[in-house]
């Protein structure tokens, strides 16, 4: 059976490859069978996908500090002066 559906170690690797369209037909079929039969790997697939979604939305909480804001403002001012001068 393992020859048909692969191991969990292989299946979790195939999941990443399939996401990027880098899995051949034979392994795609094996993965499909594996996921039909293995709830744990299905869970892994869904959970990893969900973390990817959370990653995209990841943002820092704090705003720019006053010092950084001033520094950037000064640099931009210098840049404008250089051009006009």
């Amino acid at each position, binding site marked *: 059976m393992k020859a048909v559906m692969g191991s969990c170690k292989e299946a979790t690797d195939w999941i*990443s490859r399939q996401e990027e369209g880098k899995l051949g037909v034979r392994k795609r079929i094996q993965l499909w069978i594996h996921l039909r039969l293995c709830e744990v790997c299905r869970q892994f697939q869904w959970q990893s996908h969900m973390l990817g979604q959370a990653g995209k*939305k990841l943002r820092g909480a704090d705003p720019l500090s006053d010092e950084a804001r001033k520094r950037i403002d000064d640099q*931009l001012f210098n840049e404008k002066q250089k051009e006009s001068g």
Partner: protein
Amino acid sequence: MNVLNPDQWIDRFGDLLFQYALPRVNDTLLAEDLVQDTFLSAYRSRSLFRGETSEKNWLFTILKRKIIDHYRKKSSATEALPEEIDEEEWFTESGAWRPETVPGRWERVHEDLENRELAETLEKCQNHLREKQKQVYILKYLEEMDGDEICKVLGISSSNYWILIHRARLQMRDCMEKHWFNKKNKK
């Protein structure tokens, strides 16, 4: 037609750009520098702005390029790369999940993905990845690049990439399960 207002950039977009950059480079000073470089580059090349995209999107495109350039430069530092898949920590010799690392059901799945505490836990878990794994993970999931682009930026082979991303995913999932999704005594 969109126009540029450089005088308003810091007030309108400074925080947004900084908050985007910080979790992607994990260094406050560096994130500030990237925001500064973004504004300077944008100002110098403002004649190229055609107004087809919004001012905000244009600035974000420049920032994203700067983040990728940062990783490109960083990748020239040498670090041993994995030669083959070796995940004994996760799987038995026959390739089955080990009982201690088998994915469990998650409890807190209905909470908002933009929840602040979740974001902090995600960042902490990311920071526990090995350096190269972290770079690959950030470029793939936070910057949404595909494997071929990531290999070019980091100067790694495709087989290295698949090993690194596989391990990073295993580790991130496990870390988030322990520290967020199934963490007891939550607030």
